[in-house]
Structures are given as structure tokens and as C-alpha cells.
């Protein structure tokens, strides 16, 4: 948590996950469709094909005094240096997993990279929520099987179909609450 020069509390939430798991789609949906929250501009650093090259970013305000700076990361393997930079100062993580069975290994590798960068902070000082995205895919793994394979039983688990906006708002509210609770009560 940081304060800016205007005294506003700023919390950084990072959407992390493997390539094409739906991180940008989630943030874009929150930006375009969720009413009742004030949002700043939507900044994207993407390649000519529209894939995230560095990050997407938008500030989302719950009140005038509390702002969530929400970032996505570039999921492709070669962008690991960019991901490390975006992760700096994160107050909360939303791990966006691709439910497709064919993407299981990519999910595991992405999570391992995150654990490697945050170490013991993950889930303790820095809350994490796991969003199982693309639940409508024909080869989507059953929830419990995917959770077990990722070894994320101790984290809050949410399901979504980001292209339809299903489950995205609820997951964002949940990680935002986790971040606030961590600051208020260190729980």
C-alpha cells in the first residue's frame, strides 16, 4: 500500500497467469462493464497482434480516498523480465488459470514462476485469489481436479467465463476485499 501526494491510499492488484488465460479480458470487462466504481484511463502496452507485451493498467476507485491500481502481466514465456517488474509492490494477486486440460502445464509453470518471485510472501503478506477461467470450454478440467493439480487448495477459488463477464466482478470484489482486510487487520 502506498499513498500518493494527494494522500489517497493506493493498492496494487496484479492479474497473473499463463499466456492467453484471459487476464486482459478480465480487466477489460471490469473496465467496460462494472458500474459503481470510478475508473481512470485504460493503458495497454501490446504487440501489433493485440497480445500483451508488457501490461495493461487501470486505476479503479472504490471511494475518492482508496484506489486500486490494477495491472495485468504479459503471459508469454519470453516476457518474464517484464512480469517481474510489473509484480513490484503488488498488494494482491489474482491468478487467472486457463481451465483447459491442454493448458495445465502452462498454469503450473506460471504459478511456479510467481511463487519463485514472491516466495513466502504469497498468500501471507500478499493475498492471492485463484480464478479458474474458461469454464465453458469442452475440455475444461473439473474444478477439484484443477485445484489439486495446481496445489492451491488453501486459496480462495472462483470460476469465470471472462469473455461473457461471468464471475469476473465477484472475483475482483473478493481480491479487493482481501487486500483491504490485510491492511486493516493483517488477516
Amino acid at each position, binding site marked *: 500500500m*502506498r499513498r*500518493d501526494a494527494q494522500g489517497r491510499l493506493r493498492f496494487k492488484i496484479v492479474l497473473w497467469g499463463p499466456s492467453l488465460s484471459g487476464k486482459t479480458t478480465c480487466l477489460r470487462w471490469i473496465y467496460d462493464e462494472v458500474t459503481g*466504481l470510478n475508473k481512470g484511463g485504460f493503458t495497454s502496452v501490446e504487440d501489433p497482434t493485440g497480445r500483451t507485451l508488457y*501490461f495493461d493498467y487501470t486505476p479503479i476507485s472504490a471511494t475518492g*480516498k482508496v484506489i486500486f491500481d490494477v495491472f495485468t502481466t504479459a503471459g508469454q514465456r519470453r516476457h518474464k523480465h517484464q512480469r517481474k517488474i510489473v509484480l513490484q509492490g503488488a498488494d494482491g494477486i489474482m491468478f487467472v488459470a486457463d481451465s483447459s486440460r491442454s493448458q495445465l502445464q502452462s498454469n503450473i509453470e506460471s504459478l511456479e514462476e510467481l511463487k519463485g518471485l514472491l516466495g513466502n510472501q504469497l498468500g501471507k503478506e500478499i493475498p492471492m485469489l485463484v480464478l479458474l477461467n474458461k469454464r465453458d470450454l469442452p475440455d475444461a478440467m473439473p474444478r477439484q481436479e484443477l485445484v489439486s493439480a495446481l496445489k492451491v487448495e488453501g486459496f480462495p477459488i472462483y470460476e469465470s467465463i471472462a469473455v461473457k463477464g461471468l464471475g469476473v466482478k465477484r472475483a475482483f470484489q473478493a481480491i479487493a*476485499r482481501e487486500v483491504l482486510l490485510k491492511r486493516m487487520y493483517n488477516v
Partner: protein
Amino acid sequence: MTVDVKAFERILADVIKAESGIKKVILVDRTGLTIAYTTRFSYFKVDVEGIGAIASAVYCASEEQGKSLELGELQIVTSEFEQGKIFASSCGKGILCIITDESVNIGMVRLLMKKASEQLKAILDEFLAEKPAVQLAGGEEEEELKAAFGELDKV
């Protein structure tokens, strides 16, 4: 809060006033947060926080590149465009970003950045250190957080 945050604005204002080619001055931290900024009047609406997030990311990426290549400490990042330039340099825990027109006196900008960076460094170190890792919210801050909690529930 013990840090005089108005000092940020004063230092940034001094920079923008010192050279007519300077259009915007933005102070960001290394997590992408825009701490303070000042800008000349413009008809074009600019998303300063987005620009600040990119400035921070670009500077940190250049630092990482230099580290991998063992090039030593990064001094300044310069991006030259047809109609303007962007400069970024470190000021302790923060990054000072200056956006100018194309004909700006580069030597002057460098000098201004050096001076401002030294001034900002000391205040920034104190400002950004005001977040002890495990200090819990209390008083006014707790009220702000509770209000945010309530707003999230209404969405």
C-alpha cells in the same frame, strides 16, 4: 504524515518553469504509481497515470537490461519522437519523467533533472518509507478502508 507533500509539487513546478520546451513533469515510483505531476495547459486530454505507469516500467526494464549486460548504473532513458522527447531518470526510490517538445535544449533538461532528482531523492525516501510492512491501519485510515469496503459491496 510528516513529509511535506507540497514539496513534490514545488520541485516539479520549478522544473516546468525553467524551460519553455518542457510540457509535463511526472514523478512515479518503481511500482508504477504516479506520485505527483505538473503539466502545461493543453487541449489534449492525457491520461497522466497511464503515462506514469509506462514511464516507470520502461525505466525499470532499461535498468534490468543494463544489469543483464553489466553496463553499470542507468543514468537516463531518452525516447525521441518526431514531435517531442521523453526523458526519465532515477531519483532514489522514484523516477522523474519529463516530456518535452522536439526542440528542447537537451543539456538544460539534463541539468534540471539532475538538480531536481537530488532534491526529490531525500523527500521521496522518507515519503515511501512511511509504509511499515506490518503496521496496521488505524484512525482515519481505517475509516477510509471501511468506506471502500462498503462501496465494493454495493457494486
